[in-house]
Structures are given as C-alpha cells and as structure tokens.
C-alpha cells in the first residue's frame, strides 16, 4: 500500500482536501464542513447538479481511509480521465466553463446555498463538456451576504475571455503566468477604450478593476446585497460572458487539411495505417501530439481510447472542441514550451509530463516541425517522446516532401542528420521499431514504436 498523500493543489479550503490512496482519488471532508455537506444533500442541490451532468458524482467511502483523524466524511469522486487547466483551453472551452460556473451559482442560491469560490480550476472537461469537480464549494447562504467569489470569477473567466475576444486570443497565455486569474486592473488597461461603452465590461471589468486597487477597509463588512441582487449580478455576468465571441479566422493550422499535399487516396491509406497501428498497441489512452483539428484523434477514440488532441494553434483546438468529437478532449499545448509544474512549490498544477505517460502517442507530421522548425535534435525529440508515452506512432516526413521544403525555403539547411536513417538512429536508444510502412502515394513513412525499458 502507498501512503495516502494530499494533492499539491488541495490546500486552500479548510473544508477538506483531495488525497490519493492506492491510485484512487478521495476527498476528505473536515468536521467544520459537515453541516454544509448535509445541506448539499438534503436541499436537493447535489442531486439536481449531478443529474444535469454539471457536478461530478461522488460515492461515500469509509472515513478511516482519510490520512487525518477529523474526517466528517470521505467521498470518492468519479474519475476525470485527464486534468486540464484553463491555459490549455480554447475560447469556447473557457466560455462554457464560465457559463457552467454561473449556472451552478444560480442553482445553489435557489437551494439556499452559495458558491463560495469560482475558480476555473474547479471545472474539468469530460465527455465533451465541462463539469464542476469541487463538491465542497457550496456553503449555506446567509441573507445579505455579497458573492465572495465575484472577483475570482471576473479574474478567472471574464477578464481572459474579454481579452481573447476583443484583443487577441493568444492572451489566454496570461492565465499561465497568473494562475489565480488575470488582475482586473491589468485586463482593464489591455482592453480597447471602446469596451468602456459596453455596460457589462464597464461594470465588471473596468470599474471593478479600479475598485480592486482600493485598500482594505472595515466598510466592507457593511456591504450587503439581497438575494435578488445576487441573482441579478449573476444574470448580468452571464449576459456579459454570452456577449463575448471569438471566431476562427485563417490561422496557422486550422486550415491545414485544406492545404496538404495528400491526395485522397494517400489520406485514406494513412488513416488505414494509423488505425491498424493504433489497434496493435492495445492502448487505453492516446495523446495525439500536433493533432490539429483532431482528424486522427477520432480514429483512436473510435477504438475506445481516452484521447487527448493536443495542438499549438488556438484555432485548431477551438474547431476540434466545437466539433464535439466523441471521446476526444482537445487541448492547447506548445510542445516547444510545454505546460510546466506551476503554483505553490511547483506542485499545484502538473506539467504535461506529470499527467502522463499516455499508452500511445500519435505524432503525425510533427517531427519535422520540432526538428527543423525549432532546431530540436532528433535524439532530443525521441527522448522527450519516451517521457510522454509508452508507445508512439510517428510519421517521418523527409526533406523531399513539399512541407519540409517549405520549412527550409527561407533558411539555411543546417540539418544534415535529418533523414530516415538519422531518424532510426536517433530513436533507437529510446524506442524499438515494431512496424514501419511507407504511406503509399507520398514519400513519408509511418513507424510504430514501443518504449525500451531504460
């Protein structure tokens, strides 16, 4: 048995914490939260949210499983296949998560409770839609109490959504450097001046941003809002979020399939080979690296694999999310600067690597972008793949291919080792070649590799 350990991200809320025991996740509920937990069950809020697929379901577990003695209860939440973070979400993913949070806050008020935090990290994606994961985020509503999570909601959701929609979608990366949300005064400064004419943004971001600079005062204890006022605030936030839109326009990769050098027959052959290679791995989880809009991730998902479609392009990830490909979770990831361990003591948010390894990686038409587009030596690509996956299906694209020629068009070719033999040599210390096959109608080769025991 492995000693139970509290998750590095679960330390802020005194109501309880999440811990792992023998590979299973549990939630310790502290004695001080027991009355609120009773109300969560008895008010019907829990059932209402779980039935609507808005809150992750929890089973009761034995209190003796808790690593500390004061457990009022131990819950065993339904497993989320892969934890993802707001800085890895597309615009619509963040927007759907925001709207879910507001709907849950509204429902909580209807049941005599209030959502005591509105962290974007309390939302995860499973089965193509967002779900709230923090069962202890609800407390008994007290008449007159303002929504304590108002600022958190605006920093975690409204500010990044407004910046993505109205300035540049790439500003979502600010969530990676500000894991407790984008400071409202910063968001206000970055937004165009004309957004001060939009009532929702004027109130919840610009005015709020100015107010957030106020120093602490006892007057705050006199701030009081009726329940109707709270519902009105939630409704206004909902309208403001719904009014923010971002549409994918000619991005680097989102139109990739319309601009490849594959004939229809070659594409069909590639699909067939990828399907056969995936099946041979008997994998249960698949990470499609450089997945674009998830065309090949779909094949893995159809084989029953929990599939993540990682891509660097916000437009491609947005399209993959909107397409709602069954069994596929699209996420943003720049492999040349991947998600690191973040937060307190580097332990709150896991790196991509810490969330792996996947049973199988798909790396189709990717290696040349890393090796030539980013100058990463092939051996380093192989070493990193071996840290991310137990098996890998890798497409090698030679220099004769028009896509590689395009990469080399405006630069000197300083890659003498970039050829199929160099690829085999670089991957050999890390992976064993199980199968390889030329993709008919192209100059490319597909490899099925399995990781060596290093």
């Amino acid at each position, binding site marked *: 048995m492995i000693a139970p350990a509290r998750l590095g991200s679960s330390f802020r809320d005194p*109501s309880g914490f999440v811990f792992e025991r023998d590979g299973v996740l549990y939630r310790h509920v502290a004695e001080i939260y027991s009355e609120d937990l009773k109300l969560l069950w008895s008010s019907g809020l829990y059932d209402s949210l779980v039935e609507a697929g808005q809150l992750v379901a929890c089973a009761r577990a034995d209190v003796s499983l808790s690593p500390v003695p004061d457990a009022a209860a131990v819950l065993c939440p339904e497993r989320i296949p892969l934890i993802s973070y707001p800085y890895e979400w597309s615009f619509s993913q963040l927007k759907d998560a925001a709207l879910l949070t507001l709907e849950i806050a509204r429902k909580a008020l209807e049941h005599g409770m209030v959502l005591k935090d509105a962290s974007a990290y309390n939302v995860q994606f499973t089965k193509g839609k967002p779900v709230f994961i923090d069962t202890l985020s609800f407390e008994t509503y007290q008449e007159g109490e*303002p*929504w304590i999570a108002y600022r958190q909601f605006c920093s975690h959701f409204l500010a990044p959504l407004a910046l993505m929609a109205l300035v540049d979608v790439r500003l979502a990366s600010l969530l990676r450097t500000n894991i407790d949300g984008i400071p409202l005064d910063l968001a206000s400064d970055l937004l165009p001046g004309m957004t001060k004419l939009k009532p929702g943004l004027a109130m919840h971001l610009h005015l709020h941003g100015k*107010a957030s600079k*106020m120093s602490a005062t006892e007057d*705050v*204890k006199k701030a009081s809002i009726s329940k109707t006022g709270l519902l009105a605030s939630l409704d*206004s936030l909902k309208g403001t979020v719904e009014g923010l839109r971002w549409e994918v326009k000619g991005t680097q990769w989102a139109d990739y399939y319309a601009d490849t050098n594959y004939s229809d027959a070659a594409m069909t052959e590639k699909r067939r080979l990828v399907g056969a290679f995936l099946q041979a791995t008997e994998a249960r989880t698949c990470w499609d690296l450089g997945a674009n809009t998830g065309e090949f991730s779909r094949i893995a998902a159809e084989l029953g694999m929990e599939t993540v479609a990682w891509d660097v392009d916000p437009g491609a990830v947005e399209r993959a999310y909107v397409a709602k490909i069954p069994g596929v979770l699209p996420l943003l990831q720049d492999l040349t600067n991947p998600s690191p361990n973040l937060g307190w003591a580097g332990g709150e948010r896991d790196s991509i690597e810490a969330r792996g390894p996947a049973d199988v990686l798909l790396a189709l038409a990717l290696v040349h972008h890393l090796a030539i587009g980013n100058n990463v030596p092939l051996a380093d690509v192989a070493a990193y793949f071996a840290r991310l996956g137990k098996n890998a299906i890798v497409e090698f694209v030679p220099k004769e291919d028009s896509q590689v020629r395009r990469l080399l068009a405006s630069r000197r070719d300083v890659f003498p080792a970039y050829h199929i033999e160099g690829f085999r040599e670089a991957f050999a210390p890390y992976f064993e070649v199980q199968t390889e096959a030329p993709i008919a109608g192209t100059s490319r080769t597909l490899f099925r590799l399995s990781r060596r025991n290093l």
Partner: protein
Amino acid sequence: MIDLTLTTIHTSPLAYLDGGTGSMLIQAGLAGILTAAYFVKAQWAFLKATVMRVGNRQSDK
C-alpha cells in the same frame, strides 16, 4: 425592488477567499442597478411570452 441597504453581514467561517474590499463594495453598489435591469428584463420576457401566447391562440382559430 432595489435593495441597497447597508447592514452588517455575517461572514461564514468557511469563506476562505479574500473577496477584496473593492470587489465587495462595487458589487453592493452595482446590485441596485443590476436588480432594476433584471426586473425590467423579467417583465419584458413575461410581456413577450404573453403576446406570443395570445398570437398563437388567434392563429389556432
């Protein structure tokens, strides 16, 4: 409908977040305007639904 009374609130022992002085005050300040807007929106939705219902009844005849 507009409720902007200032009374001392009870702070829950479980409220572990710092809501922020400015955020709490601005929220209370905006609540009046937002409540009025919420009321107007609800009345408008009710009026629209009533007109639609009456219109549907007439077209059924």
